[in-house]
């Protein structure tokens, strides 16, 4: 610790170089943090939104294949099922030219709160959702992005059906990663009936199971029940469903991780260049330090510490920059991304990412300072002094 002022003085000797190096590291660390939010968004989505005791039942052939609505009652009767709702994709867009900006579904309001118990939707919101035919419950991410509030009226034009519906927002899904928009199935049914094309099918059934132990038997029983029926089904947990649904994003995630790795390697080189430059300029001085009795170990440690302090401070600054940049990204209209990239474009820097960033910059400091410091501390005093003077 007593060498700290010495280390800081050394960093201050060439303030421009230290500043440039620190800025380069900070920017790169910020970039790594932002890139890391994408795969982390996927993990967080699966752990924050998806539950192990909620299961999805859909047509075995695919999600665009429908099931009879009567299946819902049959699923409700399966032992272990606490509550179940049907789920119909509406594909609504605020502006059809821009496409679907957030997923929106028609659901059964009675059991909605019970199926999504873990989301902690306000009881008042759930009550209003049951009461008003045009009620909608919307995820916080979508509310914030479009600057909507509870009580606002929103009109969506379906891209799947020739229908346009107006909704009144009665509550939110209180999770910053939730982007879904839910409304009453009955509202959709009436609109269909009015258009002269009544429907009696649903895209998916979501049910909550009372006990994790009973999830597997319940899924098995549901699928057995519909075997050889009008529509054969596949049931799976919510985690598995979304894991599959976003499975095709794996390629992009791999590329993002590779790019993040490349940027990290970049920081190592920038920091190592600086460390080796500053050591080279100081060879004479280091030889003198040794000649007057400073030990190899001390010299090695102070030089290494110099690199570590620089890169850790810069890394911490970079982590802060990433917080600012991601909040900009989230608020910009286009930055939130469409549903095409799903949970990848939440751009939320979690605490874990921040902590990792600071650790990464600490290790970059060690990695970049090690060789120059070792070289300098091992150099023979007599030879250096002869060369320099």
């Amino acid at each position, binding site marked *: 610790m007593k060498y700290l002022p010495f280390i800081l003085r050394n960093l201050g000797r060439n303030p421009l*170089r230290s500043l*440039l*190096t620190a*800025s*380069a*590291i900070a*920017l*790169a660390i910020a*970039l790594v943090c932002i*890139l890391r939010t994408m795969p982390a968004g996927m993990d967080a989505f699966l752990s924050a939104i998806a539950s192990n005791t909620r299961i999805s039942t859909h047509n075995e*052939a*695919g*999600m*665009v*294949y*429908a099931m009879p609505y009567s299946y819902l009652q049959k699923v409700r009767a399966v032992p272990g099922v606490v509550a179940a709702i049907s789920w119909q994709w509406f*594909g609504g*867009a605020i502006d*059809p030219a821009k*496409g*679907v900006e957030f*997923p929106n579904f028609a659901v059964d309001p009675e059991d909605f709160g019970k199926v999504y118990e873990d989301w902690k939707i306000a009881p008042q919101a759930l009550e209003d959702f049951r009461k008003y035919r045009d009620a909608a419950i919307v995820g916080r991410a979508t509310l914030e992005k479009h600057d909507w509030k509870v009580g606002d009226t929103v009109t969506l034009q*379906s*891209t*799947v059906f*020739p229908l346009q519906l107006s909704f009144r927002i009665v509550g939110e899904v209180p999770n910053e990663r939730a982007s879904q928009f839910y409304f009453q199935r009955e509202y959709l049914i009436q609109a269909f009936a009015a258009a002269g094309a009544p429907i009696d099918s649903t895209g998916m059934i979501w049910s909550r199971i009372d006990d994790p132990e009973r999830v597997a038997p319940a899924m098995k029983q549901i699928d057995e029940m519909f075997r050889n029926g009008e529509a*054969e089904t596949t049931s799976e947990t919510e985690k598995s469903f979304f894991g*599959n649904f*976003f*499975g*095709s*994003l794996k*390629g*992009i995630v*791999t*590329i993002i991780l*590779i*790019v993040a790795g*490349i*940027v990290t*390697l*970049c920081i190592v*080189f*920038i920091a*190592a*260049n*600086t460390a*080796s*430059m500053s050591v080279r*300029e100081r060879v004479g001085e280091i030889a003198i330090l040794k000649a007057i009795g400073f030990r190899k170990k001390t010299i090695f440690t102070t030089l290494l510490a110099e690199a570590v302090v620089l890169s850790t401070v810069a890394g911490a600054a970079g982590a802060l920059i990433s917080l600012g*940049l991601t909040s900009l*990204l989230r608020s910009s209209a*286009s*930055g939130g*991304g*469409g*549903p*095409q*990239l*799903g949970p990848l474009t939440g751009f939320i820097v979690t605490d874990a990412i921040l902590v990792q960033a600071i650790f990464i910059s600490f290790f970059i400091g060690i990695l970049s300072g090690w060789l120059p410091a070792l070289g300098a501390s091992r150099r023979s005093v007599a030879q250096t002094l002869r060369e320099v003077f």
Partner: protein
Amino acid sequence: MALPLSYSWRSLIARGTRTAFTVAVIALVVIATTLFWSLIGSLKRTLVSSGSPENLIVMRKGATNDGSSQLSLESLQAIRFFEGIARDAEGNPLISPELVVQPFFATADGGRENVLVRGVEPVALLVHDEVALVEGRMFNSSSGEAVVGRGVSRRYAGASLGSQLKFGRGTWKVVGILESGGSSFESEVWVDARELANDAKRTLPYSGFRVRVAPGTDMDALARRIDDDPRFALEATREIDYYESLSSSANTLYIIVIGLAVLAGIGAVFGATNTMYAAVQSRTSEIGTLRALGFSRASILFSFLSESVMTALFAFAVGAVGGWALGLFISWLLGGIAFGAATFTTNVIQLRVAPSDLLMPLALSVLIGVFGGLAPAARAARMRPVDALRKA
């Protein structure tokens, strides 16, 4: 008098380690941006090359893609004999009614993806003349046969020629392989339209019509005539515009890649500036000598600037080769990159670094070279010969 360029590159070689570090930094930035940029490029090329400039696509008004459109047989009959639609040798209109569904396919690693299955009639190959059957034969109608795109046959279980492919409610025999110059048709499966409608239990038999326009016809006028038909809410779009709009799903990636290029680029500028300052500093006496010999400030400035730009260009060359190789490796490793989970159709694209994908990284490295060299070169040019020589 100008300093010879060889002075610049000889100076770079003289300080090998320092140059190597800077080259490494810039090359890595080039690799990172090249990878991302060519990923978007590959996706755009795949989608944009899918449309034919002579084709119109007709869908239900308001539908954003043919997967979410439903059309009746009557609407087909209504527009089938419109003037301006090309005819084949027998005089039949070249209009291809198609049904699109997206059933699950099992990937080789046990996952599942939504794949676009297109129900077509024999006329489809005439309308989509860029799609060719390269192996096997076309399916026979009502016999449970399918032809698959090249990308599909590589990626999914049971999709190779001669295999039994399971999707929807039935099992299909793969009898042919389609190719279309890498466009998105290679990520599709084609089967008999009527069979597909039965399998998917679709009441309205079609999703869209692809119309080949007769040469010399005003496409927009024909499109307007289809749009204005009061009996059916139809909307005709140029096929190329349709695929262009599908490719806009990649626009979020543009924001990310531009942010990446800017941030990493500025970081690399700082790194390069550091190196160049050190170069100027260690050559103070040399600069003083050059000035004393009569070289002008401008020639010193230019010389240091070219040193920095040379470093950046060399780094670009290294990074471009590295990015190209890494792209091939990733493509091989992943067997193509899938796009478009939430649009319910998976496009399998091959990551290829095309020459045009390298323009952005090239511009970026030149900027890094110029901005990284500017301040140090200016410092070198401002030195007074007397001071520079004395300091040394």
